[in-house]
């Protein structure tokens, strides 16, 4: 144990080293480390957030897809209904038209028949009159016996 002036020299050296370290070595190193730690922490937080956002977006997309599908089904349903309705209407309309046309036809037929009947009656009447004339040989005055003839015509 021989303490001597070396002690003083080492004490000064120690103090100088510590001061240099405190001023020029420690701060830049620890600042770099802490800044990097912060950067990494931020990056991790950002990636977490992005993951959450992605899950959220996926959920949203799924919902939207479901909505779209439902809507499409709805639209198809409506279209089908409308189609059925239109078809129904067309059938109804066609039926009505047919009825109409038939009715007109029938009416025309009826009118024709009536007309023909009338004509036939008149001809029969004329024939009857002509026949009677021949039979009676002028004994019957056409004018005087027109009421009988009329009656005959009516009975035909």
């Amino acid at each position: 144990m021989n303490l001597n002036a070396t002690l003083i020299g080492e004490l000064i050296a120690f103090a100088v080293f510590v001061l240099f370290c405190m001023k020029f070595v420690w701060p830049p190193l620890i600042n770099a480390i802490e800044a990097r730690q912060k950067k990494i922490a931020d990056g991790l937080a950002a990636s977490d957030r992005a993951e959450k956002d992605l899950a959220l977006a996926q959920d949203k997309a799924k919902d939207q897809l479901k909505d779209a599908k439902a809507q499409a089904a709805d639209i198809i349903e409506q279209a089908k209904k409308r189609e059925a309705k239109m078809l129904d209407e067309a059938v109804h309309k066609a039926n009505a038209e047919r009825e109409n046309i038939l009715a007109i036809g029938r009416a025309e037929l009826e009118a024709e028949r009536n007309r023909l009947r009338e004509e036939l009656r008149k001809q029969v009447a004329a024939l009857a009159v002509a026949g009677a004339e021949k039979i009676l040989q002028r004994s019957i005055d056409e004018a005087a016996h027109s009421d009988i003839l009329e009656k005959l015509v009516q009975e035909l």
Partner: protein
Amino acid sequence: MAAGEELTLSSHIQHHLTNAKMCTVDGSVAFNKACSEAGFWTWHVDTLAWSIGLGLLFLWVFRSAATKATTGVPGKFQCFIEMVVELVATNVKDTYHGKSKLIAPLALTIFVWVFLMNLMDLIPVDFLPAFAGFVGEQALGMDSHDVYMKIVPTTDINLTAALAIGVFILMIGYSIRIKGVLGFIKELTLHPFSTKNVPLQIVLIPANLLLETIALVAKPFSLALRLFGNLYAGEMIFILIGAVGLAQLPLHFIWAVFHILVIVLQAFVFMMLTIVYLSMASSDNH
């Protein structure tokens, strides 16, 4: 011949354990044996040169890492330096709870510097002293036995004591800064025997002062002597192993491997105790 061998062995060991000295005798610079009467004003030039050299190496390496430090992806060198810084920073954060810009760089300096100085112990004991003796003989015309070279600064009590005194000054400084002069005096005089009774307090002051002063002074003593003792003993065993001929090779290997643990551990212990002592000095509760 046995006596002569013993003599050369002990003188060999003695030679290894002697520092290169420098002093002024009658106004001119003198070295080594001429300094035996110089008393306190002797300088151990080998201790000073190696320790300051290693300190500068530490500062240069860490400063060059610090100037190139990037917050992006670090290089391998920066990673290594940051690992050391991180280790020190974690220990300081866990142990010292106050706010101080000094503690962490102080701990880093102590850890790396003491480690580097201890590391010199792993260089085979005869290499550098023999080289120094050769240089002294060839270049300066000295007898190689008069050239002393002790390359492990931590085996010099002057260095370990200087470190411990530095820490001791900081301990007192922190105590006074945190608790004030009065608080520091109170801490020394009113504990460990404390009482609310004022006359009794006065009676207890001498006993308290004695105990607290011993407790306070024991800290730098234990710091200095622990490091010195461990490294001195390790160095001594290296020297003894170096004196046993060829058998030294396996022995030296085993002791060196074991010593790797010792040198790191001692550097770490010195750093941790420094932090603990300063944290005790900074905390108010006794």
